[in-house]
């Protein structure tokens, strides 16, 4: 850790919040995780019967969008960089996760179908695959983050966009999916490179494990970690990079390191979201998901919610995912409304709905406790 946060000493009573937050490690205090898991389990048990498959599906989509928005917020909101290739990380993670569950199922159980029930062997493989998807995406995040050592602002935006587009084309040129375990066992190396993930057709045979429980468990992890990150010395260093790179460099913050770190973290969670996305039923992950159009959706979420506000972008993700369903009859005008919202927001309230504050911080009476 760098020395950017002041040491907790009794002599600095002015900044008790900062000193104490910096002590709480990202995994310290497992309470919120437990509560999140319990809530997710409750949702899984109750929601599908209570509100039906259609609404459950929207709630799942909202969960995935929230993971994406919160993770993108680490780069765009906290660190002040501008990534418009976030869907690329998601798609990469999704493909990696899909390869593990699909080919893993073929190898282990000779079938591509779902294996085991809730929390069964298949479910655990799915969870592991999402994490691996996250790691693969994080590795890509590291690579994309590297140019940020030399590039700033707009240039970096174009590099992230280029990453998404390159990924899309590369995925389009992958091989056919191997149909069964016999084909997989007898496959030659030439069939495995490039990986057999379906090319332009998309990876359409991935077993569909995604459900409310796993989406909201992963969302809990993402949100809690992002929140603690924001409160920690790490997060404060990132904010300092956003506010003024030169000043923070002068204060001993390793600017380059925090930029790359932000990319790696954001890509990791996006990769997990990709894993969830790839295993969602009624969806085949395909190369076009890596394109810039999907990325723009998430950028809009972070901008509207407030760059830096975790609850703000969550709210924006929720509204922007649900709104199209409400507006299904006004289909043509949906994106026009979004576009106008974006422009007006920049003119009237450029910091987004909540700025860097969380929802409870703008409730009247709670006062302003953290620096914004």
């Amino acid at each position: 850790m760098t020395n950017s946060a002041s040491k907790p000493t009794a002599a600095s009573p002015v900044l008790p919040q900062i000193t104490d937050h910096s002590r709480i490690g990202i995994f310290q205090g497992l309470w919120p995780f437990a509560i999140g898991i319990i809530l997710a389990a409750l949702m899984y048990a109750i929601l599908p019967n209570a509100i039906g498959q259609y609404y459950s599906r929207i709630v799942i989509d909202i969960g995935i969008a929230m993971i994406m928005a919160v993770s993108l917020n680490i780069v765009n909101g906290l660190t002040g960089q501008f990534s418009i290739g976030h869907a690329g990380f998601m798609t990469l993670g999704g493909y990696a996760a899909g390869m593990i569950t699909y080919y893993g199922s073929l190898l282990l159980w000779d079938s591509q179908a779902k294996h085991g029930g809730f929390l069964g062997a298949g479910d655990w493989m799915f969870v592991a695959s999402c994490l691996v998807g996250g790691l693969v995406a994080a590795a890509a995040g590291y690579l994309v983050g590297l140019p940020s050592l030399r590039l700033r602002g707009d240039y970096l935006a174009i590099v992230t966009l280029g990453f998404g587009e390159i990924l899309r084309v590369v995925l389009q040129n992958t091989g056919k999916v191997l149909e069964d375990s016999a084909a997989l066992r007898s496959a030659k190396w030439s069939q495995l490179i490039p990986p057999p993930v379906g090319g332009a057709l998309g990876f359409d045979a991935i077993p569909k494990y995604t459900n409310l429980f796993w989406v909201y468990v992963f969302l809990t992890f993402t949100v809690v970690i992002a929140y603690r990150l924001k409160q920690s010395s790490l997060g404060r260093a990132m904010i300092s990079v956003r506010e003024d790179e030169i000043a923070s460099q002068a204060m001993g913050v390793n600017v380059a390191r925090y930029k790359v770190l932000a990319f790696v973290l954001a890509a990791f969670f996006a990769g997990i979201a990709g894993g969830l996305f790839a295993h969602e039923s009624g969806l085949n992950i395909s190369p076009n998901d890596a394109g810039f159009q999907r990325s723009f959706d998430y950028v809009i979420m972070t901008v509207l919610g407030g760059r830096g506000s975790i609850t703000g972008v969550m709210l924006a993700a929720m509204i922007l995912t649900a709104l199209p369903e409400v507006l299904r009859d006004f289909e043509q005008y949906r994106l026009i409304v979004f576009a106008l919202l974006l422009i007006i927001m920049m003119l009237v309230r450029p910091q987004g709905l909540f700025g860097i504050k969380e929802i409870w911080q703008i409730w009247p009476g709670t006062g302003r406790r953290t620096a914004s």
Partner: protein
Amino acid sequence: MHSRKLAFGNLMKLLRSFAVTGCGLVLVVLAIGGCNKTATDSNEILIGHYASLTGSQATFGNATDTAVHMAVEEINAAGGINGKKMRLITYDDKGDKREAGTTVTRLITKDKVVAVLGEVASGLSLAAAPICQENGVPMLSPSSTNPKVTKVGDMIFRCCFIDPFQGAVCARFAVEHPKLKAKTAAILYDQSAPYSVGLQEEFEKAFVKLKGEIVLKQTYQEGDQDFSAQLTAIRGSKPDVIFIPGYYTEVGSIAVQARKLGIETPMLGGDGWESPKLGEVAGKAFNGCYYSNHYSSQDPNPRIQDFIKKYKAKYNETPEAMAALGYDATYILAEAIKRAKSLSGKDIAAEIAKTKDFDGVTGKITIDADRNAVKAAVMLEMKDGVATYVSTIQPGM
């Protein structure tokens, strides 16, 4: 100790945010629920249709949807199904797989349709089919030709031919047609479209089986405007015929640019060429090119001419094949519902499967054991921008 107290404070904040998120979710769900309630009327039979009404394949989706609407109106005017009126709900999936999944889920679980029509593009049908299968609601695709679609399960049907048949028809035509007599072929396909990728594979298989040789394969992507690089390479390989199983939007430009590069080789394609726009774009550049299709608007068959007359009277344009298929699909579905004992998905699916020699606009349609339509294909020749009928190729040739 001090820090633990604060950790607890943090916990409260997190709890609050969970609560806020939860309340928000509930509100959103309520909002959607409250906004558009579909009145269910026991005198109505609800049919769902999902199609790309916007997006890059919007012309196909709109043509299909128009014809489906027309068929539903006709059926209702003729007394409906067993005294009940058919009611159609169409949703736009924007040519996006995620949207296709959501709209079909909505059709089935919220609007509670008894059967689903759609989609044109195989990729989208593949995304939505598992949802229909899981919920036991029959899905009838008017025009997805990729064989994988109906393999999803016993609830998924189609009323068009499949790519292996279409590929074989094109290959045979290339080898046998007196004006072509092709021994070598080059393939130029859209690597971003599942339809195109699938069809070129089947063509290659069939063509090689007929002792033909594929001399060169080139690819492009949807939306490409310049094909000079690919065409220059093809020009060098000197094939007897160029097979281009793409969509009309790009094929028109390909033809024009090929002629500009001095390539006079005849071109051959599949049903993706079908559009009145194709002739407009390419005009004379397309002379001597052929494509396989579901029907020919020049066919004198009264059933076809009658359909064209009605369609023209209503929408003032010649229906393309997608419209004809949408029209047939609606009638096949309506007849199956009429015959079915109940409105349960199982009964309707069983009756769709029994469809035999249905006299449609696109020919006699029989659904086989794999839930695919067995029917003839027609070959059309482009003459000065007009697709003219050449021959009909029966199944099982």
